[in-house]
């Protein structure tokens, strides 16, 4: 059963009465995900597509055992909401909120580490174990979602939410299914970076190959390459690095908060170089991911 998500995944949505949250809660329920409760302070007693809403995560937990939480609240409240989830014993917190101050994110991650909790995000659009469970809007409504994400043996990790769906759709159309697909989030500091998730995927019998969708900025790809090289990582990885034009425009921010290059720092050419040196297959065009993955699957 892939990583992070399983048959026993039971979800609380924090901020469930928000516009986006209402929509993706419906999508999750349609997909078969067990959304057991929602939390919005002041809205206890309401229901969202039948899901009961509580004032606190603590009450929600007492009434419905949950192990996973989605944080979809405004940026100023995201740290508190995440602390709350960690404090009451949630094991996996998927933070969707965008634009959380970096200092808050560092504290969220530090507290999670102390309590042995995993954070995915912030600025994540969720994750999906195709055919089983999904968190968040990944893939959109059910029929669309089933076209993009199909069960299989490739793990897809992406810094971009939109490109997670695109990448899986591309693989699915070519008959390649996914074991798990995760949008790790587009921020400079995220709870689960590529290099944090690779050890889990190495132990996952369902995953035969891994695809990484990378972007300019941060040292995430560099650190991932270092990890792969130093641990002689056993599974084959295909990476695509979007935005090489950003290398020529230092100091300019494109798309996600983390996409900014200063000289060699964060440049895609550096990332491609160190990833190739570590044995990762780096493709130049996004659509070349298919051939590269096929080759790996045929060899194994």
């Amino acid at each position, binding site marked *: 059963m892939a990583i992070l998500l399983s048959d026993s995944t039971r979800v609380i949505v924090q901020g469930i009465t928000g516009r986006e949250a209402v929509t993706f809660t419906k999508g999750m329920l349609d997909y078969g995900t067990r959304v057991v409760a929602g939390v919005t302070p002041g809205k206890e007693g309401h229901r969202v597509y039948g899901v009961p809403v509580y004032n606190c995560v603590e009450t929600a937990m007492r009434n419905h055992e949950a192990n996973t939480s989605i944080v979809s609240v405004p940026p100023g409240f995201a740290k508190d909401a995440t602390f709350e989830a960690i404090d009451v014993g949630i094991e996996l917190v998927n933070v969707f909120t965008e634009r959380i101050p970096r200092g808050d994110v560092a504290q969220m991650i530090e507290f999670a580490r102390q309590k042995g909790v995993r954070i995915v995000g912030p600025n994540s659009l969720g994750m999906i174990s195709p055919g089983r469970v999904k968190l968040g809007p990944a893939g959109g409504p059910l029929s669309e979602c089933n076209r993009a994400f199909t069960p299989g043996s490739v793990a897809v990790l992406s810094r971009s939410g939109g490109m997670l769906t695109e990448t899986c759709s591309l693989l699915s159309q070519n008959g390649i299914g996914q074991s798990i697909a995760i949008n790790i989030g587009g921020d400079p500091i995220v709870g689960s970076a590529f290099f944090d998730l690779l050890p889990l995927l190495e132990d996952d019998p369902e995953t035969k190959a891994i695809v990484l969708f990378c972007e300019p900025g941060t040292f995430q790809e560099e650190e991932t390459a270092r990890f792969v090289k130093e641990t002689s990582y056993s599974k084959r990885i295909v990476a695509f690095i979007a935005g090489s034009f950003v290398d020529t425009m230092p100091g300019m921010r494109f798309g996600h908060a983390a996409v900014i290059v200063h000289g060699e720092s964060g440049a895609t050419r550096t990332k491609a170089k160190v990833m190739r040196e570590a044995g990762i297959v780096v493709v130049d065009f996004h*659509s070349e991911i298919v051939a590269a993955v096929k080759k790996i699957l045929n060899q194994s």
Partner: protein
Amino acid sequence: MRLYEFESKKILSSYSIPVPKGRVVTSSQEARIFAQEVAGPIALKAQVLATGRGKVGGVRFAESPQEAEQVAQEMLKAEIQGYAVKSLLVEERLDIEQELYVGCTYDEVKKTPLIICSSLGGVDINEVSRKHPEKIHKSSVSSFMGLQPYKAWELVQNLDLPAKLPWAAQAILLKLWGFFSQFDAILAEINPLVLTSRGELAALDAHIEIEDDALFRQKERLGRFQIEEREDKARPPTPFEIEAAQIDKADYRGVAGRVIQFDGNLGLLIGAGGGSLTTFDAVLRYGGKPANYCEVGGNAPVSKICKLAKLVLSKPGVEGIAVITNVYSNSRVDFVARGLIKAMVELGMDPKSYPVLFRSAGAFEEEGYAILRKYGVRYYDRSTSMDEAAGLAVEMIKKGS
């Protein structure tokens, strides 16, 4: 948001970090008066947000009031990396014995605050870490505990300072941390921190960046130093980019409107985030010349897409437009299609003859394709990859149809 040097120094000195005696001036007369008051050599520093201004004439010196006036006059007419020099920070010139570095930032790999110091200051710290990694001393700190005195003391032992000064350096480092954490900074560096011939430490230059996403709660604190929220890009925005930003601001819905101007002939609406990076790269690799970068995603409404499409289509030199997005999860294909068609119709363009290409898929794609069919726009679904669509768009511009 990056702060100007004079702003940074104003804040740091409020934390009792010593800075050289100085003043912000906007005229050469004021520079002369300051030099007269100092009665000694002064430094004149252009207040621009360009990095490495020292190498391009952004920092100069004067020995006399007359020279100060002359130099100030020249500098106030200059442009540095595209920025007009509107003001100078004039300072007494210190007699420097040693240049050091102290800074606070975040470690993206360890995901903690990071305190850095080095006995090699006055140059880019990244360069020092490449050439003399042994001269860089770093320490991750808990974001709950912060920088503790013992840790600051441990770090300043590496600065090779003469007797008694490590105490002063420790105090400065702790004050810098205090500022960093209270102001939601993501970078606060004093570079160089100088040791003067009088045996004192002073912050000769400082680089501070405040987290954009924390400005909502830092407004009041920054306001006390007359610092207001502002746009912060590597170069000043063009009128085209300003107009796009206004369209974005007028309607909060949707990730749409992050626009950057290029000088090519292919107008682009692409998106969003990683999708726009992928498409833009593919267009360039196929030899295309983008007229702009513009993201569309996050379920932007028809009206917003229409306004952005109009802006791009009206840009001088644009010979065609391509709308290329990833398979959408939380946006609607039909909204994007409607926005594009509406823009073309309102501008009196015929979608049948004008070079236009559309590739998107996901929610409400059938409704979107139906509209495009009706108006004769060539469209592609998910069976055409984003790369292929980019290649087709480049070809379309070359053929002119």
